[in-house]
């Protein structure tokens, strides 16, 4: 616990959060601009989630790839991996603590973004005199349940993606290559290149934006949602296991 705190402190002191924060501010600004020009005239809440969750497919994974690469691969590039992974609690735990610290920071950043974004759009919609909420298919409570469960899934997806970035980082030990490979995987998935090899049902990447239309559904299919959540979590555990096996074998220089 103490070590995770230290690791988070280190990330903060090293200003690792700056890159994701800047890109997110950028994202909020652009989205807010487009929100006020939405041609389809959706109401505020629908729009918020629509845009936010759609971004889980593209912008957020890119931010996650850069952030997690920064957190891990910098240690190899700057040779600080020597002190980081040669600790009394062993390489696996050093890696795990790092991963947890990174996940905590990235989750906080996303949850913050979510609420700030919502707030900004609320103001924009108010100023423009647009519709704030338009209960057309389900109740307000149902709406929030859907919205937050989707947010949770997206965060789990993003940190699973982060675990994948860690594995690539451990193997390549090079920042640029790690980011490029991660993005390549992301793009390949979106072009459907993996579907020949891995069935969609067990590919965590395909859950990225599955629920971006959830607001239009009559009923959110919670069974399918839970399946996707479990798929992400088990993939995440698998990734962590693989990275444990790798970190023991690599040399720290």
């Amino acid at each position, binding site marked *: 616990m103490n*070590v995770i705190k*230290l690791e988070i402190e*280190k990330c903060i*002191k*090293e*200003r690792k959060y700056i890159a994701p924060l800047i890109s997110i501010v950028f994202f909020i600004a652009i989205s807010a601009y487009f929100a006020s020009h939405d041609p389809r005239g959706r109401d505020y809440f629908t729009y918020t989630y629509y845009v936010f969750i759609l971004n889980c497919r593209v912008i957020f994974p890119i931010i996650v790839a850069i952030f997690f690469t920064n957190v891990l691969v910098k240690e190899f590039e*700057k*040779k*600080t*991996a*020597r*002190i980081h992974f*040669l*600790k*009394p*609690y*062993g390489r696996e735990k050093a890696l795990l603590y790092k991963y947890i610290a990174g996940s905590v920071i990235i989750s906080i950043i996303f949850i913050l973004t979510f609420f700030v974004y919502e707030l900004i759009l609320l103001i924009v919609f108010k100023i423009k005199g647009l519709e704030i909420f338009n209960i057309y298919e389900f109740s307000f409570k149902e709406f929030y349940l859907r919205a937050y469960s989707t947010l949770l899934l997206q965060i789990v997806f993003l940190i699973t993606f982060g675990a994948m970035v860690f594995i690539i980082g451990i193997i390549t030990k090079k920042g640029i290559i790690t980011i490029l490979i991660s993005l390549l995987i992301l793009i390949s998935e979106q072009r459907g290149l993996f579907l020949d090899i891995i069935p969609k049902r067990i590919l965590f990447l395909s859950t990225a934006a599955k629920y971006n239309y959830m607001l239009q559904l009559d009923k959110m299919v919670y069974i399918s949602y839970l399946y996707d959540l479990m798929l992400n979590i088990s993939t995440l555990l698998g990734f962590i296991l693989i990275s444990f096996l790798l970190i023991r074998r690599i*040399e*720290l*220089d």
Partner: protein
Amino acid sequence: MNSLEVKSVTKIIKNKKILNNISLEANDGQVVGLIGPNGSGKSTLFKVITNIYNPTIGKVFVDNIDLQKEYEKISSEIGFLIEEPSLYENLTGKENLMLISKLYNKFDSNIFEEVCNELEINKFLNVRFNKCSMGMKQKIGIAAAIIHNPKYIILDEPTNSLDAESIIKFKRLIKTLATRGKTIILSSHILSDVEEICDKIYILQNGEIIDCINNQENKHCIQYLIYTEKFNLRIDQIPIIEKDGQKVLIVKEEQLNDILNMLSRNNIRIFKIQEKRNTLQEKFIERIGYNECD
């Protein structure tokens, strides 16, 4: 009993044999030196000793613990500086040192203060590490190797880019640490420094240990050169050379009295007697075999 033992370590990187069957030992309170030409494998050997590299063949034991298998048990007892300091660039010296001692769970404000005072790094502890000069970085790097009060201290060329005064203080610090029972292994290209502080010196060449010098003995091994007039006597076991029409007898300390008596008995004139210390540099040159050097 040896507290640090390298047993027949071979390290192959990319099909190249960097270390070849290296064995090395260091006892408690001993300062062990490692010297050798550029590229002879000193840093690589240090990386194996600190578990940064895994040996291809062979084992490293620290306190009888197999480093590769049970590194976690001993890790907080090992401090190191290999090649350049491996510290976080965006943190200050102080933050870096605090981080290390906390990660090892061995933060002690007394030791922290003592190390900072000894190395005189207080002035720039609050400077961001990437804004430090070479020497400042090096000093913080040395501090980082000892800040958690480890029993084994591995220093690869620690005096690099230190100023003259700092080198003297550093040597004093090493001697103090050794008297407290720390085992120190260091490398350096400045042979006089190594000779001054090390008890035992290994010479490394092309990834192999070609000699191990017991410095204590080496220091006391003094020879005398006796310059005399020419004579025809045969003296057993004493090397004699001729130089500028004089004979020069190379005599060990314990033989000196007998030889002088014998010379005066035979009425052989002595021009001068010169003391010749067997320096590490001479020994090094002799072993490495630079013929062109004097």
